[in-house]
C-alpha cells in the first residue's frame, strides 16, 4: 500500500546501500511492477496508465497514458524507447537523484515500455555534466542484464529481447527538446526538428519513438505495482502521483523533496519539513517555477496557492520540471530577467531567425531597462518582440522564452517603468 505524505519515488534512496544492486532493489519492491506487467494483457497496462493520470514530468505535463496509447496504436515492427535524462533546466536536479541513487527504477520503467511496445532498443540520453552518474547507471544496466531483466529472452519470455544504451550529451540545453535529443542520439548536432510529424510516428531513425523523462519512467513501476487508482489518489484531479520538487535560491532548506500533488505552496516554502522560509532574513518576493522557461509568480499573490497542475494553472503558473527558485525582495525582477534572457540567447540553437535574433534583442532591451537607459517605446518594443519570438519560433525553447518575461512584466510593471529615462542622464564622475 502506498500512502499520502510518504516518499514513493524517493523511498529506496535512503534505504539502499548499493544503488545498483538488483537483490537490494528487489528487497524494496523492485521489479514487481514489471513482474505484474508481464502477467497482464497489454491493453490492461494502458488502462492502468490512463487511470493513474501521470503527466509527463519533464515539463510539458502531457498525459503519459495518451502518449503511450498513441505509440501503441502506431503500426511498425520497429519502435524505440528513449529516456530523456538531459536535465539542464536551471534550478532542477531531481533526475540526477534518481539516476544516481535509484537507477534501477528508471530501468524498470524503461523495460516495461520495452515489453509493452515490443521494442528491441532503448536509449537513455544523459547530460554530459552527469558523466560520473553515467558510470553508475551503466553498472545498474549490467547488473540488471546479469539478473535477466535485460538482454535476450527477458524473464524467460521467448522473443522479449531488449537492450538499453547510454548516450551522452555534451552541453547543449536545446537537446532537452525531444526531437533535438533524437538527432543527437543519431550522432548529429542536436538541433530540433520541424514538427509535425509527431515523434510517436516518425522519431528516432524515422521510426515510432516514445520519449519520456526520467521521473516519468520511475513512476511507471509504481503504477503497475500499486494500481492506477492508488497512484492517482496520491495526487489531484488533474494529475496523479507525487512530484519531485527542487527548492533553491533564497530558501533556507535548499534541496530535493517529494510532495503529493495538492500540497499547499505555503507549506512547501515555510514549513520546517520543506523550505523553512527565507534564508536571508528578508521577505521572499517571487518564485520562478519549472526552470528558465517557466513563469514567475509574485509571492504576494500566492497565499492560497496549491501545488498541483490545476492549482498553478489557476494562477497562470506551471509545474514544469519541478524547479522552485525563490528570490527575496532585494532581487530586482529586471535584473533577474536579464540573466534569464542571457541564458536563452546563449542556448538558442540558431536554427530559426526569430529565436536566434529575438533572444538577443530581448536581452538588449532588458539590459536597457536594467541600466535605466530605456526610452519611451521600449516597453512596447519588448512586448512585441516577446510576441514574435513566441509565435514564430520552431521549437519549445523559442516558444517559451517569453513566459518568465511576461509574468515579470505583469506583476512588477513599476520596476520596468523605473528603467525608462524620463530626464537626460546626469553626467557621472568629475568635471571632465
Amino acid at each position, binding site marked *: 500500500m502506498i500512502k499520502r505524505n510518504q516518499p514513493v519515488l524517493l523511498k529506496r534512496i535512503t534505504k539502499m546501500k548499493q544503488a545498483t544492486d538488483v537483490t537490494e532493489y528487489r528487497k524494496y519492491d523492485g521489479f514487481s511492477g514489471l513482474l505484474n506487467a508481464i502477467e497482464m494483457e497489454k491493453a490492461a497496462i494502458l488502462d492502468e496508465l490512463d487511470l493513474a493520470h501521470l503527466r509527463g514530468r519533464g515539463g510539458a505535463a502531457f498525459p503519459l497514458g495518451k502518449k503511450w496509447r498513441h505509440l501503441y496504436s502506431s503500426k511498425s515492427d520497429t519502435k524505440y524507447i528513449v529516456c530523456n535524462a538531459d536535465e539542464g533546466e536551471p534550478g*532542477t536536479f531531481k533526475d*540526477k537523484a534518481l539516476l544516481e541513487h535509484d537507477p534501477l527504477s528508471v530501468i524498470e520503467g524503461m523495460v516495461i515500455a520495452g515489453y509493452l511496445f515490443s521494442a528491441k532498443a532503448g536509449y537513455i540520453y544523459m547530460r*554530459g555534466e552527469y*558523466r*560520473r552518474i553515467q558510470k553508475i547507471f551503466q553498472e545498474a544496466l549490467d547488473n540488471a542484464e546479469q539478473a535477466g531483466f535485460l538482454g535476450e529472452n527477458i524473464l524467460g519470455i521467448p522473443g522479449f529481447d531488449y537492450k538499453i544504451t547510454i*548516450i551522452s550529451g555534451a552541453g547543449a540545453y536545446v537537446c532537452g527538446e525531444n526531437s533535438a535529443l533524437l538527432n543527437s542520439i543519431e550522432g*548529429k548536432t542536436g538541433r530540433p526538428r520541424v514538427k509535425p510529424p509527431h515523434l510517436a510516428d516518425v522519431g528516432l531513425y524515422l521510426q515510432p519513438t516514445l520519449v519520456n523523462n526520467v521521473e516519468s519512467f520511475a513512476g511507471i513501476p509504481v503504477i503497475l505495482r500499486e494500481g492506477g487508482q492508488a497512484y492517482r489518489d496520491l495526487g489531484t484531479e488533474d494529475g496523479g502521483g507525487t512530484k519531485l520538487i527542487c527548492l533553491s535560491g533564497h530558501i533556507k532548506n535548499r534541496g530535493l523533496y517529494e510532495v503529493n500533488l495538492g500540497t499547499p505552496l505555503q507549506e512547501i516554502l515555510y514549513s520546517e519539513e520543506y523550505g523553512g522560509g527565507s534564508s536571508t532574513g528578508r521577505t521572499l518576493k517571487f518564485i520562478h517555477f519549472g526552470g528558465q522557461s517557466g513563469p514567475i509568480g509574485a509571492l504576494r499573490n500566492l497565499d492560497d496557492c496549491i501545488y498541483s497542475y490545476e492549482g498553478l494553472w489557476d494562477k497562470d503558473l506551471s509545474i514544469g520540471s519541478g524547479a522552485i527558485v525563490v528570490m527575496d525582495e532585494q532581487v530586482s525582477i529586471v535584473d533577474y530577467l536579464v*540573466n534569464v534572457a542571457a541564458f536563452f540567447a546563449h542556448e538558442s540553437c540558431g536554427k530559426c531567425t526569430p529565436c536566434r535574433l529575438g533572444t538577443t534583442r530581448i536581452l538588449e532591451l532588458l539590459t536597457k531597462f536594467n541600466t535605466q537607459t530605456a526610452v519611451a517605446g521600449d516597453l512596447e518594443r519588448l512586448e512585441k518582440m516577446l510576441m514574435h519570438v513566441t509565435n514564430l519560433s520552431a521549437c519549445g525553447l523559442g516558444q517559451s522564452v517569453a513566459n518568465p518575461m511576461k509574468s515579470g512584466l505583469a506583476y512588477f510593471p513599476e520596476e520596468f517603468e523605473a528603467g525608462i529615462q524620463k530626464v537626460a542622464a546626469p553626467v557621472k564622475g568629475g568635471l571632465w
Partner: protein
Amino acid sequence: MNSLSLSEKEAIILANDSDPQRILNILIAIQYDSEEGYIDEETAKLVAERLHLSQARVYEILSFYAILKTEPQAKYVLKICNSTPCLYTGGGMLSEMLETILEVPADEPTPDGLFMYHSIPCIGACDQGPVIKIKDTVFGDLTEAKVYQLIDDLQNGCYQEL
C-alpha cells in the same frame, strides 16, 4: 598534440563499440582523459575514420556542443555556474574573485598553464550554489575563504584525481 597514445584513443573508441551513436561519449572520454583537455585535429580525424563519419560531421559536432573543446585547456578549468539560482546565492562574486586571484580574464590560461575559468549554465547542483566544477567534481557552498583554499589546494596538488 594530444597526450593520449593512439592505442589509448582506440581503446576508448572500441569500449564504445565504434558506435557512431556514441560519438559524444567517445569525444568526451578522450577529452577528459587527455591532459590538454581538447580534441585536436588528429583525434577528430581518427574518430571520423573509425566511426565512418565525415570529418565535417565531427567538426560540426565539436563546434555545437559546449563541453567539447578544440583549443588546449589549462590543467584545471574552473567552471562557474552562472544560472540564476546560483548567481543570486553568491555566484556573482566568483568570476570577479577568480580574475583577482588568477590575474587573467575568463577563458585565458594563467601563464603557468595551471588555471583557467569561465561561466557555464546550471550543472544540477543548484542546492549547493555558488558552485565551481572542475572535470567531474563539484565544489559547492563556496565562500570567499573556500575559493582561496581551493586555489591553494589545487596549486599544492591536493586533488590528484582532477
